[in-house]
């Protein structure tokens, strides 16, 4: 059976034009997908967690849930972390669970676009859907982002080569500029590559902002970029009909972090005196935007939320997972839809290895290897349906294409079982 317009649950592009062929309950073909997406659909059965385990030994789902309830109800400072590679129903359940345990809730944006959120909360954001950008943008700037490695179809579907209503020529109708610390696949296909010194983005953004405002800077070069080039770029930006800066972790994970984004917003605000200009973060995990959205509408805050006082409090730097784990503050963790043992710096990962961890996962990961309890779950968007938010904030419905293995439930269902157990215990 052929499924059309399937949504890809891998990156923040959430491409919704895939064609997936299912035979006898197995995926046998996928069309329109990029290499990563193809791997996700075709390999979704490989290296799966085959059964629930407790202390590395196979257990029934009931035993694994009971052990999880025991760990969480005995913990003083449990951390619920991950969320970005699952659907919104599960995220909502995780919020409820974190509240019920009086713990801390955090998602992977604390190590990707957390600094973006910090800056946008201060200064606001001018944004549009990817559809509008595709139809109107004539100047695309990738700043510290590299879609040819991380968002493989972004350029063809939304930004670079796509033909749009007011950009009917596609690639010819758009100018593409890359600002990065190194040459990348994206810089090679761009019209211009501007090489900035590592950790020099803040200076370059501020110099551009001043130049757009008409200030004559006396410097000869800023962050390794000659002033002539800065002035020329400012003119190109001002002259665009509709410009976009797609920025990535090159800005959020280097020196300055949220201040880099603050500077980028300032530049874009300045440009809006001359023309239409936008700023869009290249969100990585397919539903990290949803993790922020759901957590915000339920707690008021997008990540790093503490429930220990019975009401939500927000403090990135304190209630963020890397800090909590590196400080040795968390005394238990529930991890879903992410692999912090692989993605956190070693001290934070060691902090995770020291405490009892419950992991809901499809595949064997370093985090599942460290966990006291591992519960296999269905893959959202392949074996379970749900909603995800694209990088521009557009919600899209994910489909269920095949049945999960017998006895394997969705993240939402397993979280629901643990939550029931916690509530049952509380009533006794």
């Amino acid at each position, binding site marked *: 059976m052929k499924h059309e317009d399937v949504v890809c649950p891998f990156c923040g592009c959430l491409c919704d034009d895939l064609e997936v062929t299912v035979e006898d309950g197995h995926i046998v073909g996928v069309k329109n997908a990029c290499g990563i997406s193809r791997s996700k659909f075709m390999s979704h059965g490989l290296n799966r967690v085959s059964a629930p385990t407790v202390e590395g030994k196979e257990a029934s789902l009931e035993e694994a849930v009971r052990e999880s309830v025991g760990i969480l109800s005995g913990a003083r400072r449990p951390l619920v972390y991950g969320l970005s590679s699952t659907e919104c129903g599960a995220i909502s359940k995780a919020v409820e669970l974190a509240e019920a345990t009086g713990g801390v809730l955090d998602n992977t944006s604390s190590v990707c676009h957390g600094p973006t959120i910090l800056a946008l909360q201060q200064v606001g954001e001018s944004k549009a859907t990817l559809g509008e950008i595709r139809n109107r943008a004539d100047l695309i700037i990738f700043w510290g982002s590299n879609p040819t490695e991380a968002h493989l179809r972004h350029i063809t579907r939304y930004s670079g080569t796509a033909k749009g209503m007011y950009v009917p020529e596609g690639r010819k109708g758009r100018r593409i500029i890359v600002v990065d610390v190194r040459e990348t696949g994206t810089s090679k296909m761009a019209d211009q590559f501007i090489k900035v010194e590592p950790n020099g983005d803040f200076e370059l953004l501020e110099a551009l902002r001043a130049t757009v405002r008409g200030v004559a800077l006396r410097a000869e070069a800023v962050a390794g970029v000659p002033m002539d080039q800065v002035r020329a770029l400012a003119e190109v930006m001002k002259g665009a009909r509709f410009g976009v800066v797609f920025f990535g972790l090159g800005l959020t994970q280097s020196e300055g972090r949220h201040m880099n984004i603050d500077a980028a917003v300032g530049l874009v605000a300045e440009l809006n005196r001359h023309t239409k200009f936008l700023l869009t973060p290249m969100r990585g995990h397919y539903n990290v935007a949803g993790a922020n959205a759901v957590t915000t509408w339920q707690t008021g805050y997008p990540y790093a939320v503490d429930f220990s006082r019975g009401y939500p409090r927000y403090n990135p730097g304190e209630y963020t997972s890397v800090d909590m784990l590196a400080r040795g503050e968390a005394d238990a963790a529930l991890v879903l839809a992410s692999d912090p043992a692989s*993605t956190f710096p070693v001290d934070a990962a060691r902090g995770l290895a020291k405490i009892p961890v419950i992991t809901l996962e499809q595949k064997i990961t370093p985090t599942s290897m460290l966990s006291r309890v591992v519960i296999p779950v269905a893959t959202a968007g392949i074996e379970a349906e749900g909603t995800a938010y694209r990088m521009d904030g557009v919600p899209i419905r994910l489909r269920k294409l095949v049945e999960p293995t017998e006895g394997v439930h969705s993240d939402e269902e397993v979280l629901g079982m643990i939550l029931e157990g916690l509530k049952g215990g509380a009533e006794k």
Partner: protein
Amino acid sequence: MNGIEVTLISGRTARQGIGLEEGKTSQGYIKSVNEVSLCPEDAASLGLSGDEPVTVATEHGSVVAHWRVDKGLARGTAFFPYGPWANQVYASSTDGTGMPQFKGIRATLSPAAGGKVPSLQEIVESMRRAEH
């Protein structure tokens, strides 16, 4: 030791994305993240050749990794894909932002004479051992 100073940058790659969807225990994933890229001139100045791995060291930690040449990198810049190997050298301090610095770190590269690239299992074990 004939090491060189570099600015280390971490990031995503398509190979890593493809590999991680096969599974973190798959060879595809492991090979995509246990190697550091440097420019041909830096590789030559370190006298690197063949299969001999390199040691990547920062103030914070060190790890032995495979290496590859990337002509797109400038001298003094090295690229280490996100993953358990790269994470051995990054600090967990976030300067109050929640975000560790994964890009633009001072590091030293040197030939890992006789060194061996740790397996995923060994990295996980070393995290566990740190608990005692």
